[in-house]
Each structure stands twice: as structure tokens, then as C-alpha cells.
């Protein structure tokens, strides 16, 4: 086979091994945030229209597991055909995704905020950044790992395979269970201590539009606030309204906000339907999406800094100590 012949060429073996390790690290670093929030990755798959044959949720889980498996295999030096061939396909898949986003962005079909979430919601990349980073981080290391070096790490194969198996199982279980685990602070950009002016969407460069939460809700920069992120058309929105109304009524010296990706018309209809005692602010989805795994999600802000978070609606009782 071509790969076997090329792989056994004399050459800087360590370069091939190191490239494989680098690629493996990239895969693992990309897989973990996606495992923490597989739903976001599934949404991206739907957005890209890739769920034409396989349901997006299952495809997301599968890609995460395969990516982790191949990543760990490369890190432990298992540069065998059963690793390198799927790795090649995965590299092509990711570069294809980011290239497609890049082309659509250049044609004006996508904005800066609609990058492929190939690194999950924790990393903010524009379509251009995603494409060029993937191209240089994935392709050269793959080519070096696949075709340079003395070939296969035959020695100590069993413990390597065992390690890969355990790691793959662990990631598979994590990706399956994580939506039910209290991992929101780890899986999203919203966590205690973060400043609200750090929650932004869009590219930070001249000629581009970048929107940050402190511009959309400048009131959060001063004083105490309770904020919930939700969707106005969610079936259980009445529960959100009740909880936030109660919070707005019972808590002196604190403002209550609902952030939602909604049009002017939807916000207005919501106001007239519910008469909420809290403020509703339109916030674009690219800014909101990295802040939650599931809706609703809530947080307390004091003088522009997040002091507390809740998965779901805020619990009864004082939000501030």
C-alpha cells in the first residue's frame, strides 16, 4: 500500500512522530469542549446541513468520539493505517467545513459570527480564522505524520491500544452524559468572575462589526443585576416569566433582565402578552449561544462582573450575598 511504503521511508522519524502528537493534541483539544457541549456541535451540524443522512445529535456524538479516539492514538504514537486513514478523512472533513464557511462569508452569505464551532463554543473564531488555522494546524502535521518517519510504533502496542480504548470510552460517556452534568461553567464562556464586556460576537478588526454585551445591556456595568438567557418561544417560558417577575418584585436594589434572540416584533408581542416586570433585551444568537448549553441559563452580575451562575432559572432566595 502507498501509505505503508511511504511510511517506511528513511527519514526524520521523530518529525513524523512529533507531527502525529501535535495533530493528536489538536484533535483532543478540539474534542473536549465539544464533548462538554455536544448540543452546540449538533446545532452547527444542522446549520451546515450535514444531517441529511444521520441525525445531527448522533453525528455530533460520533464525530466527537472518533476525534478523541484518533487524537489519543496519535498522541501515543499509534500511526497505523486504521488511525491514519480515518485521520485523513477527519482532516478533510474539518477543512472542508471551514473552507465552505469561509467561501460563504466572502460571498456575504455569512457574517463574522457564523464560524464553524469546530472548537466548540469556548473559542471565538471568524470564518477566515477558522479556515486558515485549520489548514495550518491540521494538514501539514497530518502529511508529516502519515508519510514521514520509520513507520509504525509496533513496540508496546497493547498498552497503547488499551489507553486509546479507555480514553475513547471515557469521551464517549462524557459526550453522552454531559448535558445532564453540572458543567455549564466549564463548557461555556459564562462563568463566575468573567466581565460582561468580554462576551462578544463578531471579528475585532476594522471594517467588521463586533457586538459585545456591555453595548447591548450597558446597565449591567453598574449595580446589581439578575440575568436570564431564554427563548421567547420556548414552551415553558411562562415559568421563566413567573420566576423573574417574582425576583423583580421581591428584590430591591436589583434589576432583572431577560436576554433573548428575538426580533422587535417578538419582543413587543412578548411584552403585551406577559406584561413582565423585568426588561427584555434583544441579543443576537452568536453572542448568546456561547453562554449556555441549554435554555434557560441565569447569572448574577455586579458592576459588570459575573458573581454567580445557575443552570436554569435562578433559585429562590437572595442572588447576592
Amino acid at each position, binding site marked *: 500500500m502507498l501509505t505503508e511504503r511511504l511510511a517506511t521511508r528513511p527519514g526524520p522519524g521523530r518529525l513524523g512522530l512529533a507531527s502525529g502528537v501535535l495533530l493528536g493534541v489538536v484533535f483532543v483539544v478540539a474534542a473536549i469542549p465539544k464533548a462538554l457541549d455536544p448540543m452546540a456541535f449538533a446545532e452547527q451540524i444542522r446549520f451546515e446541513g450535514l444531517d441529511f443522512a444521520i441525525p445531527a445529535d448522533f453525528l455530533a456524538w460520533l464525530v466527537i468520539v472518533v476525534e478523541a479516539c484518533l487524537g489519543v492514538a496519535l498522541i501515543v504514537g499509534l500511526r497505523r493505517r486504521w488511525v491514519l486513514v480515518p485521520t485523513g478523512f477527519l482532516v478533510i472533513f474539518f477543512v472542508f467545513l471551514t473552507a465552505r464557511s469561509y467561501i460563504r462569508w466572502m460571498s456575504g452569505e455569512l457574517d463574522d459570527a457564523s464560524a464553524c464551532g469546530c472548537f466548540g463554543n469556548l473559542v471565538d473564531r471568524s470564518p477566515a480564522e477558522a479556515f486558515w488555522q485549520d489548514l495550518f494546524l491540521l494538514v501539514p502535521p497530518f502529511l508529516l505524520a502519515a508519510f514521514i518517519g520509520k513507520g509504525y510504533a509496533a513496540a508496546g502496542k497493547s498498552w497503547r491500544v488499551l489507553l486509546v480504548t479507555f480514553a475513547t470510552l471515557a469521551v464517549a460517556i462524557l459526550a453522552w452524559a454531559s448535558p445532564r452534568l453540572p458543567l455549564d461553567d466549564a463548557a461555556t464562556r459564562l462563568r463566575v468572575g468573567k466581565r460582561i*464586556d468580554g462576551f462578544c460576537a463578531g471579528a475585532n478588526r476594522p471594517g467588521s462589526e463586533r457586538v459585545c454585551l456591555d453595548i447591548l445591556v450597558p446597565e449591567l456595568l453598574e449595580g446589581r443585576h439578575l440575568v436570564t438567557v431564554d427563548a421567547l418561544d420556548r414552551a415553558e417560558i411562562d415559568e421563566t416569566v413567573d420566576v423573574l417577575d417574582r425576583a423583580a418584585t421581591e428584590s430591591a436594589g436589583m434589576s432583572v433582565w431577560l436576554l433573548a434572540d428575538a426580533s422587535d416584533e417578538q419582543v413587543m408581542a412578548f411584552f403585551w*402578552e406577559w*406584561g413582565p416586570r423585568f426588561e427584555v433585551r434583544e441579543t443576537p444568537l452568536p453572542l448568546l449561544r456561547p453562554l449556555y448549553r441549554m435554555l434557560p441559563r441565569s447569572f448574577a452580575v455586579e458592576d459588570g462582573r459575573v458573581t454567580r451562575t445557575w443552570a436554569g432559572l435562578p433559585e429562590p432566595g437572595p442572588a447576592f450575598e
Partner: protein
Amino acid sequence: MKFGFSISLSSRVVAATLLLAAWPLFTSGPATARSPIDEVQRGFELVDDYVAMKDGNDLEARIYSSSASRAILIVPEDIMAPAVILWPRTREVESLKSMKVQTLTGGFAEVKKDAVAALHPAFQVVGTNVVFDVGGVEMRLKPKPPLVGLYDAPEMLGSSAVYKRRAEDYTPSAEMLEKLGRLSSNVRVRVFFGTWCPACGQMVPRILTVAENLGESNLNFEFYGLPKGFAGEPEAERHDIHSVPTGVIFVDEQEVGRIQGNDWRSPESALWNLLGS
């Protein structure tokens, strides 16, 4: 006195249960619309969000919103026309006795006890309009269009009650104002804003306060309103504006810098930092 028959325990339990279940039928009166104004309703503040229409024509009116009850109060300028109150969630529409509605200084209003003159059919939300009928006359609340184009400070303060109220709440640094007032160059500050923009709602009133305080100086302020989604708007493109609020500062008609977003939190300090050097 003994009864001529005995009633079993189970029958008594059934009878008691039926009686309890039927109790509301005996105690509830006919269904009536809620009259929410049982006490003085305070805390109505002037808002800029809506314009009122009557029979398809613009209605000169002040529109207030209550943060406590969330009701919307429409007070026509024509004192012969009744004020109307709309209740979100219950969709109730009530016209009020004029003498029971009191407008206060500072853009506030109160509604006294027993203010309801008449109840009207529930309002409907049609797109972005709230449509209701008061005594056979169709009335409508629709979103106020954004301010677009060039304005000076007095025009801005006259066109927005919210801006005016917030401008009055801001106290700039006297020291900075004095320094800015002593500048000898001709300075023009063009502030691009949007009335739909929350940050502008916070920052532009502060700039207006500074502008009013520097009225006699060499600093001239002008305000350019942009529509929502202003990409492609000629004036925004000409000045390369990508976000609001953005102030472009000219000295002797040469651009010397820009102030954006929350950097306007203290306009006098931001301007001095740019111009003082």
C-alpha cells in the same frame, strides 16, 4: 328532636363532598372585568417607545409606562379626550376620568383611585401595533420610528423625553467642562447614534448634558441618527461607522479621533483626553 329516618355515614360524606365542590357556584358573582385601579397608581414615566394614532391619524399624546404594574397610560394633549390605560397580559382597555389622571413634572404621572370611566374590548396585537377600540373609535399604538438625520442638542432634548430625563440626571465634571471651555480651536463633535440602541440611550443623554454646558465654547456638537441595520447608509459609510454610539471629533475640520461605545461614560473626560493633549 329525632328524625324519622337515619342517614348513613358514607352518604353524609358524599353529600359534604358535593356541597364543597358546588360551593363556588353559590359564592361567585357574575364575571366582571378586573378594575385594577383600586388605589393610587404611581410610577408612570414618560416613554419614547410608541406613538398613538386615532382613526388612522397621529394623536398628540404623552405615553407613560409603569415599571410596577407594566400598564401603559396614554394621555392625549387634547384635554377633552379621555386618557386610556392598557393592561398587558389581561389585555384590558380602560378609559379614565380626566380629573383622576395627574401629570407631574419630570415626566411622571399618577392615576388616582376610582379613575375608570369605561371598560372597552380587549386590545389586539397586530404585528408591531397594538390596536384597540375606545367608544367606537379605532386607536393604535405603534413603535416610534427612530430619529434619523442630523440634529443639534436642543432638538434632541425636545424630541426624546427619555433622553431629556437622563440628561438631567447626569452631572459632568465642572473641572473638565472648564478645561474644554477654554479650548481655542474650532472643534466639531459629530455623534452617530441610534434611538434603538441601548448604549446610546445611556450615553447620548450624557453627551447632551455636556453639549448644553459647553454652549458658549468653541465645541460644537451635532447628532446624526442612524436607522437600525445601518450598513450601507451613506453617511455611516462616508465616516466608516460600524457601531453606535460613535463620536467623530474634528479640529478645524480635520478628524483627530473617535470616541466609541462605553468610552462615552464620562463624555467630558473622554473629550479632554483626546483634545487636551
